[in-house]
């Protein structure tokens, strides 16, 4: 049905897709894996000729035997959506915020004169029909993604291309969306090409797997075989990057020792207006201990972290750091913030795009008027974060660095104040698989060498297995279970923990 023959795409002199050959038959599911910049999205967009004008496409793209490149404009319009459709990445940005989702689903049907009902489409993606009257902001992330899928199915295409369909979703919702996609493929004999950086997601959904690396297709075969016996080193790196819960080889944290408490949270409650975001939480982080706080989005884990940092005022309860209650304002709060540092999810936005690495790392020093030689302190922190030699990076601007390097700069900016606790909010969620492992290793090394304790907030249970000594599971503002990693992840006692573990895609 879809056949790519010697497809190459250039932007200027840069070759982003290099001689790719792929075929896809009806009813077949193909996963396209690769890191950011590997050209996987470019391949997908080229199928419907959606690339910008500056792209030069060579080779043939055959849809049902017809070359997309030579189609007339009218023919191309007919093929788009009716022949093949795309579930775009990031449902939150691909829906029009001022139109009801029902109208948006109906739009391609109107354009193509296809008959069908929005009701029926919503039913197929397991959404109640009333949701047609909802605006995008009234839907959750998973519901929006289903609307995107319904939209892709509107004109009865035979090929659906899903570009990172579950990237911003947490595990439970991700499992639901994947189940919907799988069922639709089986029921309707669709061809599905799914693009993701996450091999476990592809393993869950696709029969066949193709791995891209720097524009080239490096490996292709049955999903099971590719993951079990990767032939290309890059595939091996990708499979190794996703931890398997319960596998001792993926447990990187050294066996923990019991430590006296550094941070204690006692009966902490935070309200947003009438909503109770954090509900009577007790949590302890010991000296040099790594604690993972896991839960779905909306469970209140980020609010809890903000409150610990003193960025939000709690409604009631206490935060005790090193034996003393955390002050709520003034000089004492500022002094506390030197001891506890925050690492945010998306390093690209956590750095001011106008500040050089030197300025970003030195910011904390300047805020606290730390005495001593700024240059040497900054250099030391940057090298601690494994950006060596520091002189190579100090004068760069954030956009000149890769995602992993940016995250190291954020970590260096925290380290420069010699904190005792790091609060990291999804520290690896926006990073590529290969970089992810390096950052995890860095956090563990910092603990070993500097005795740095961490509170890692994540929805990724694999990360918790990799790095943490203890895990606390948060659900609807409450901590429903906490204990050692082995105890919580291997023998969960609470239903919610079990549900979370079940939803984790298995490689």
């Amino acid at each position, binding site marked *: 049905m879809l056949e790519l023959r010697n497809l190459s795409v250039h932007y200027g002199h840069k070759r982003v897709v290099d001689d790719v050959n792929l075929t896809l038959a009806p009813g077949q599911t193909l996963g396209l894996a690769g890191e950011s910049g590997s050209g996987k999205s470019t391949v997908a967009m080229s199928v419907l000729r959606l690339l910008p004008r500056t792209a030069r496409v060579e080779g043939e793209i055959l849809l049902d035997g017809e070359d997309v490149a030579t189609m007339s404009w009218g023919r191309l319009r007919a093929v788009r959506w009716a022949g093949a459709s795309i579930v775009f990445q990031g449902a939150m940005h691909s829906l029009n915020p001022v139109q009801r989702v029902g109208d948006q689903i109906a739009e391609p049907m109107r354009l193509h004169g296809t008959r069908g009902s929005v009701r029926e489409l919503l039913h197929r993606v397991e959404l109640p029909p009333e949701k047609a009257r909802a605006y995008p902001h009234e839907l959750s992330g998973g519901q929006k993604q289903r609307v995107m899928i319904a939209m892709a199915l509107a004109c009865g295409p035979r090929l659906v291309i899903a570009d990172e369909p579950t990237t911003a979703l947490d595990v439970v919702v991700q499992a639901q969306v994947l189940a919907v996609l799988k069922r639709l493929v089986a029921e309707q004999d669709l061809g599905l090409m799914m693009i993701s950086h996450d091999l476990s997601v592809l393993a869950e959904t696709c029969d066949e797997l193709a791995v891209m690396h720097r524009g080239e297709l490096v490996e292709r075969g049955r999903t099971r075989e590719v993951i079990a016996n990767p032939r290309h080193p890059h595939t091996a790196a990708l499979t190794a990057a996703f931890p398997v819960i319960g596998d001792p080889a993926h447990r990187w944290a050294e066996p923990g020792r019991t430590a006296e408490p550094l941070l204690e949270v006692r009966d902490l409650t935070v309200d947003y207006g009438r909503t109770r975001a954090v509900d009577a939480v007790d949590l302890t982080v010991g000296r040099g201990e790594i604690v993972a706080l896991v839960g779905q989005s909306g469970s209140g884990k980020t609010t809890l972290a903000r409150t610990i*940092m003193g*960025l939000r005022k709690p409604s009631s309860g206490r935060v005790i750091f090193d034996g003393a209650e955390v002050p709520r304002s003034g000089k004492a*709060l*500022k*002094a506390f*913030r*030197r001891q506890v*540092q*925050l690492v*945010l*999810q*998306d390093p690209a*936005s*956590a*750095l*001011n*795009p*106008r*500040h050089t690495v030197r300025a970003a790392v030195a*910011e*904390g020093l*300047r*805020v*606290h008027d730390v005495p001593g030689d700024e240059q040497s302190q900054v250099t030391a922190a940057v090298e601690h974060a494994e950006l060596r030699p520091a002189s190579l990076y100090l004068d760069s601007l954030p956009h000149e660095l890769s995602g992993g390097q940016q995250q190291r700069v*954020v970590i260096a*900016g925290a380290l420069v*104040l010699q904190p005792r606790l790091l609060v990291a909010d999804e520290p690896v969620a926006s990073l590529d698989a290969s970089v992810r492992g390096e950052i995890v290793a860095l956090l563990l090394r910092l603990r070993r060498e500097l005795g740095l304790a961490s509170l890692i907030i994540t929805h990724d249970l694999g990360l918790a297995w990799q790095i943490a000594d203890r895990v606390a599971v948060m659900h609807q503002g409450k901590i429903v279970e906490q204990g050692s990693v082995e105890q919580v992840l291997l023998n969960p006692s609470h239903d919610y923990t079990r549900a979370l573990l079940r939803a984790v895609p298995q490689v």
Partner: protein
Amino acid sequence: MSRFNRSGVAGAAILAVAALVAVIAPLVISADELDVTRVTAAPWQSPGAEFWLGTDHTGRSVALLVAQGAGTSLFVGLTAAVLAVGIGTLVGIVSGHFGGLVAGALLRVTDFFLVLPALVLAIALSTVLPRGLGTIVLAIGLTSWPSTARMVRAQTLTIEARPFVERARALGGGHVHVIGRHVLPSVVPLVLVNATLAVATAIVAESTLAFLGLGDPTRISWGAMLHQAQLHGAVPQRAWWFLLPPGVAIVVVVLAFTLVGRALEAVVTPKR
């Protein structure tokens, strides 16, 4: 992009010439030639070899008047714009950063000035206050800051929502740090662009006030010339040379500022 740059350079060149004229004119032109009581030429002369742009109702050279007027118009335009943009930036950043009651109060004041017709307010102010250049600057400055304030506030809010500001707070940075290191540097380019456009508006406002006879009577400005022309019947005299030059001068300088402003905007807007 290149088209904007070319027109921006053209605008900058026009402004350079205008500034040069404004600086040199008072040094070169003797007071006698602009004094109504001492000029000797006949009134309402059409353009010729002696007077390039003819003479006005008292026999003064229109060319010299236009040159002399450049200084007043540019001075009022620039100072009023600086005043307006300064107030606007301050109000915008303070209301955007602090939020809450302070922002509420400041925004109501902004809204008050925004809904008042600026020209009427300026006219009222310049009738109440003693006549003079300072009054005009004040009247224009005080009426044209609200739009800048709104824009700067919007920009401040978007910057404050970015994670790097949260990181700065978590590092222990206070208000001064966040405003000085993060908000102000990202607002400044926008403010600069806005300032060039504000100068253009201020020049027109000055001309309007002067045309309505509310200007500084002791000074020659382009608006004041138009006022004189209208007052002494340049139209029935068919003395187009008295009306056209100051009018064209205003249009050209305002256009030049707008061109520079748009070119700057294209330069400072981050490309994605």
